[in-house]
Structures are given as structure tokens and as C-alpha cells.
């Protein structure tokens, strides 16, 4: 699987610390931006982009996805495709009446 040499693991450990710092910074950014009270659409977009970056860091480095086998990648790609369908299917209920009520 991944490297078992001591030097490689020490390099990994440095990466973990680096990712930790990045995650802390991004958490501060997430909270900081929320105080700016952006328009709803923009606020959601920014929040989700930052969350996706944080999640990608966790997935790539803590979960070792960067160096994983093709089988895992294919499972995840399939999952993402199915998940997008899952998120979008309920929108079919709006087909007859294309009116999403205004929220406050």
C-alpha cells in the first residue's frame, strides 16, 4: 500500500500538520465571511466552496485518497454521480408548477 519507510512517514506527518493549519485557517475564513452577511445566493456559494476545499483536504490527505487505488476512485465517482442525482431528483416535483416560493 503506501510507503512504510520511516522517512516517508515523517514526510506524511509534516503534511498532516500542514493540512491541519490550512483547515484551521479555512474554518476562520468560513466564520469570518458569515459575519459579512452576504446576499443569500452568494453566502451559500462561498460557504459551500470553502467547505468543499476543506473536505477535499481531509479526503486527499487524511484519507490518503491522493495515493489510492483505482477501485476506490471509481466507487467515489459513482457515488458523486448518484449523489448529484439524489440531490436533483426532488426538483422534478417543480416541473408542473415552476414556482419556488420566495423565502424571507
Amino acid at each position: 500500500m503506501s510507503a512504510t519507510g520511516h522517512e516517508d512517514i515523517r514526510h506524511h506527518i509534516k503534511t498532516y500538520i500542514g493540512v491541519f493549519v490550512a483547515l484551521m485557517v479555512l474554518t476562520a475564513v468560513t466564520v469570518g465571511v458569515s459575519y459579512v452577511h452576504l446576499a443569500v445566493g452568494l453566502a451559500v456559494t462561498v460557504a459551500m466552496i470553502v467547505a468543499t476545499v476543506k473536505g477535499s483536504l481531509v479526503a486527499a490527505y487524511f484519507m490518503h485518497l491522493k495515493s489510492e487505488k483505482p477501485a476506490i476512485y471509481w466507487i467515489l465517482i459513482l457515488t458523486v454521480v448518484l449523489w448529484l442525482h439524489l440531490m436533483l431528483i426532488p426538483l422534478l416535483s417543480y416541473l408542473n408548477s415552476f414556482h419556488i416560493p420566495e423565502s424571507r
Partner: protein
Amino acid sequence: MEIPYTVEARPDTGLPNAKLGIWLFLASEVMLFGALFSSYILLRVSAPVWPHGYEELSVPLATFNTVVLITSSVTMVMAWAQLKLHNLGGARRYLWATVGLALVFMVVKMFEYGEHFSHGEYPSESTFLAIYFTLTGLHGLHVLGGIIVNGYLAGPGAAMWRTEPERYTNRVEVSGLYWHFVDLVWIFLFPALYLL
């Protein structure tokens, strides 16, 4: 009976079975939390009124919890790294640190819930509270599961190191994958519920 491919990779997948298995399980968890997320989005978009998360919930407490959970992900992966360096003592300390941080997260959550309940803010009171308690409640149960598994690995489960060190290392790695996923879900839940 000998469980196959706990250490060596299966030739067709290139992976030990447990690792493939946990990723498949995480894929199902994505669908579970994704379905609830989708419900949250639809409920919110179609509601005539919906409060901002920061009006109803404690952002400082949740920010603290976010830091706690991210740190616990670091200690979890450090535990695995220590096992790769053949340092069992260090690994167990990092595993206990992960458990400890997870317990802190749960205590803060219990306090949050208690505060809501004492003000009569039950899930039955509004759709906002209903989806908030559902999402964070399900996530909390997942944290609890992680506490039990990681506690076992830090405690009695560590005995496996003496006879099958690589298998034990793989167990810690696989549990780590689950734990990182729990952290990942929170990374999305936190802004979605508290900051928007």
C-alpha cells in the same frame, strides 16, 4: 476460520478487503447524509420564512466543536502514522486523544441541546429545529459509534499488535477513514446549519 485479505491486497481490487469495504460503507453514508441535506435544502427553499442559523444557534460553540473535530482527525491519522513507525505507545496515546476530543464534542453538543430544550425549542416546534436536530442528532450518533470503535482499538483491541501488528494497523487505518468521514460531514453541516 481465517479471514482472508486482512493484510495482503486482493489481486483483483489491489486492496485489503476491509479498506474496500469501508469505502463502500462510506459511499452509502454519503447517500444517507446527502438525502437529509437535500431535504434541508428543499424545506428551506420552499418555506415562507426561515431563520438564519446564527439567529437560532450558537456560532461560537459550533466553531469550537469544528476545531475539536478537525483536531481529532489529525490525532487519528497521527495514530496510524505512529503504528507505521512501530510506536504502539504513541499510537495508543493519539487514539485516546481522538476519543477524548470526540467526547468533548459530544459534551458541547449535549450542552447545546440542553440549552434549546430549556427554552422549549424542541424538534416539534419548527421545521428549522426539526431538520437541525435530525442532522446533528444523526451525526452525533455517528460520533458515538466512532468513540466506541476508537476506544476499543486504543484499549483492549491493541492486544492484537503483539500477534498481528499489520492487521491491527489496518484496523486503525480503516477506523480512521470512518472518523475522517464523520469530520467531513460536520465540515458541511457547520456552515449549512449555523452560518447561513
